[in-house]
């Protein structure tokens, strides 16, 4: 029981870490689009979010679609898991 609750805690914490990382990435992209004078559109399912600086002289727009969001979450998860696996193997106790 204790092991199961431990595994669930690790899983939930990993999901939380990935969610925070994705939110930070979204904030970074919004900041960059603001600096670069662009409008940033992010597609989330059927809905969409539009942010950034609205400028009539340079109305360029960057759109990120659902596939990019899914790929981003997968890439972040895979990178985290790969690093954790490497870290876990490297810290194997000596026999």
């Amino acid at each position: 029981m204790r092991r199961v609750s431990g595994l669930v805690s690790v899983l939930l914490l990993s999901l939380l870490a990935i969610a925070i990382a994705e939110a930070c990435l979204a904030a970074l992209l919004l900041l960059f689009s603001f600096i670069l004078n662009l409008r940033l559109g992010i597609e989330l399912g059927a809905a969409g979010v539009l942010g950034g600086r609205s400028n009539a002289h340079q109305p360029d727009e960057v759109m990120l679609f659902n596939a990019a969001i899914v790929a981003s979450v997968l890439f972040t998860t895979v990178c985290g898991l790969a690093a954790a696996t490497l870290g876990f193997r490297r810290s194997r106790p000596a026999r």
Partner: protein
Amino acid sequence: MKALLKLYPRSWRQRYGREMEVLLEQIPGEIGVGLDLVLGAAAAYAMVVRSNRFLRASGAFLHGVCVAVLLQAIAFVTFILFAQRSATSTSVDLGTLRFAAFLRPNFFRLQEQLLVQLSHLDWLPSATILIALAAALALVLVAPRLLRTVR
């Protein structure tokens, strides 16, 4: 100043807490001492993390996630940098899947913009952000090694 000792891990406080309290009673409470205590708490936690295999793997997981976020930010800015130099709208597609698109709504105004961009070095902000992100990535990648050498 003694309250800062609560920042230390429990195992550390059980072993050295009493001695440290006595020591803190003898020295004046200055900002430098407080800073030393905070840094010492960080070092003590780093020792705890290093000695535990699962905590170490968790740290590595967070490190990998940071690297992934920086790589994606670099990809985004690189895409904008290339798309801004292009005369038409640019998109990143894989088969029927569309990942990202850089949309230019007015082609005639675009010609003017492109000339203005070329003359005013409009690529400079993107390039600066890209360089800053690359520097941040390099720092994040070497940080574990640096921490090991500090130890």
